[in-house]
């Protein structure tokens, strides 16, 4: 059984293609994030699921029931919005009861369930407040409680955290995941914040220009991006211009790097110009001498360079290194406890060629 299915869903607005042909299946109790830059179609996908937009083609079903043509108010979805969406004229308690009223739940049961969900989001004591008396984080928790109170088949979250400040965002993010796991509710979460998506999802779908570029576990999406777009959008990437000398090696400013082990190497022609995308944590810094660095990294190819900036950030240190013969410096992450050298020091940057994306240019 699948809890939510998009089957070939296409949606256009005038000449803009918001969704090209979305195929996505959520298993019961699964938490799936749609991640992408603004205008990539992620919100449209959510609004199609909610019934606010009608797809041009394709079908949406919930628990194996086709709901493509069911109007929004007849679907059993809970939704939390990006902007504060509490009804200003109703108290917290009445907001939470709203969905149960429209579903004609009888009064005692309504009250019991409202109290129950308000306890879940730890807002029981604020039940008599009006929305304008609450902070942004509290309002979003009430919105979450209101969505959960109707016992929805699927929970739809449309960037519910993006209007909040960083600290509240982190705690509410974890709270959403905790609730979702304990209630076992199927959830589709839309965000442009990759950290958020990676942190709380079972699977992440990265979208671009109306297409689902990659769908996989947070680890897979981060470690094995299927395209240069995904690689760049999720996490940060250093970009090294290179030339493929034969299909086994690429040359980066005179240094030969073996690429045969990389799945992207198969598709590039001999002599082609490429860009090597490497994560900052897949680059290692040492003094460049034969016995420098850890044994684990000693076999890796070395690019010489000079430290431009050394920025200590607690758990990690971000070292900006100007590689010889390159235009822009690269970023290297080292653990905060390692000593990394000072600005102006000559260093060697070792790169792990198995962990990079080869992008033809």
């Amino acid at each position, binding site marked *: 059984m699948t809890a939510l299915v998009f089957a070939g869903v296409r949606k256009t607005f005038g000449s803009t293609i918001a969704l090209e042909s979305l195929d996505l299946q959520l298993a019961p109790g699964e938490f799936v994030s749609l991640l992408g830059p603004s205008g990539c179609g992620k919100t449209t996908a959510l609004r199609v699921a*909610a*019934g*606010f937009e009608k797809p041009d083609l394709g079908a949406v079903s919930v628990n194996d029931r086709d709901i493509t043509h069911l*109007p*929004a*108010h*007849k*679907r*059993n*979805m*809970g*939704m939390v*919005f990006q*902007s*504060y*969406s*509490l*009804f*200003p*004229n109703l108290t917290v308690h009445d907001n939470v009861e*709203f*969905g149960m009223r*429209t*579903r004609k739940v009888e009064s005692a049961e309504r009250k019991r369930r409202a109290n129950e969900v308000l306890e879940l989001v*730890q*807002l029981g*004591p*604020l039940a*008599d*407040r*009006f929305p*304008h*008396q609450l*902070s942004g*984080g*509290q309002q979003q928790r009430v*919105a979450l409680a*209101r*969505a959960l109170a*109707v016992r929805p088949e699927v929970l*739809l979250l449309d960037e519910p955290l993006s209007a909040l400040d960083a600290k*509240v965002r982190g*705690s509410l993010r974890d709270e959403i995941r905790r609730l979702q796991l304990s209630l076992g509710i199927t959830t589709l979460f839309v965000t442009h914040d990759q950290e958020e998506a990676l942190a709380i999802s079972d699977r992440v779908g990265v979208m671009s220009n109306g297409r689902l570029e990659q769908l996989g576990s947070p680890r897979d999406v981060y470690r094995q991006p299927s395209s240069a777009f995904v690689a760049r959008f999720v996490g940060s990437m250093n970009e090294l211009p290179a030339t493929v000398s034969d299909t086994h090696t690429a040359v980066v400013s005179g240094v030969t790097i073996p690429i045969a082990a990389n799945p992207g190497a198969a598709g590039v022609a001999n002599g082609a110009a490429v860009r090597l995308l490497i994560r900052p944590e897949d680059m290692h810094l040492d003094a460049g001498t034969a016995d420098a660095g850890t044994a684990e990294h000693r076999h890796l190819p070395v690019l010489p360079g000079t430290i431009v900036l050394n920025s200590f950030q607690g758990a990690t240190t971000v070292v900006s290194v100007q590689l010889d013969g390159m235009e822009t410096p690269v970023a290297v992450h080292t653990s905060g406890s390692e000593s990394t050298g000072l600005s102006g020091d000559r260093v060697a940057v070792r790169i792990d060629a198995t962990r990079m994306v080869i992008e033809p240019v």
Partner: protein
Amino acid sequence: MAAMTGQPLPRLGRLGRVGPASLTLLCALFFVLPLLAMARFSFQNVPMIRLGRSTLLENWSASSSLDAFGEAEFRRSLGLSVRLALGTVALTLSLLLPTTLWVHLRLPKARAFVEFLTLLPYVIPSIALVAGILPLKPHARWFLNSNYSLIPFYAVLALPFTYRSLDAGIKALDVKTLVDASRSLGAGWGTTLRRVIIPNVRTSIISASFLTAAVVLGEYTMARVLLKQTLPAFMEQYQDREPQGGMGLALSSMLLTTLLFALLGVLTRPRRRTRTPRLEIS
């Protein structure tokens, strides 16, 4: 305003303090003096030629105005005007509230055009509007013969005020999100309008209603040309017949309108809903 922007007013010099005060006084005199003159004319039984400082306290009586109130025709015309006002308010709200909401939700690009359109009745003189209606008379006698045929025309006349009022109320809400939220919670359009939109634009609805009523109670041109005996039309005729009583009527209708707007001010004051002080729990 200064309190709203949160910026302290610059300190005014002595002249600076006297200036605004005397200007306010001047304006007040400009409005009040004619009213006092009207009051003397209608409530003092002294020949016009003798009205002066020495006769200020002589022969005050409300009898001529009370006579006017006692006229059957007065009560008939007042009744008609009140019914027209209620009808116009009902028609305006039932048509304009969904329309304004629709424009905000689905046609946000058309807002400037709709705003322009609703301003037209303010720019076009009533006499021009009514001149456009008259040629229709032979074709729509059944309609134009009814007193209530004024209602749709009055709804149009009140548009510049009513649309602006409702538009401002809806603009202050994040209406798209509220409607989406309501629909996702299982409410159809009717429930959404009744339980979400209307309670939150209550203030705008009240002021739109009062403004409409004020337009209807004061409109003369259309009523006169279409030969309807509304309150302003009656007042004009009565003034010819009984100048003193007519003036008393005019004065009381003005007072009534002022009271209506004072009531409006009270009703649309933001409700204080704070039951408990704000408390942060996170």
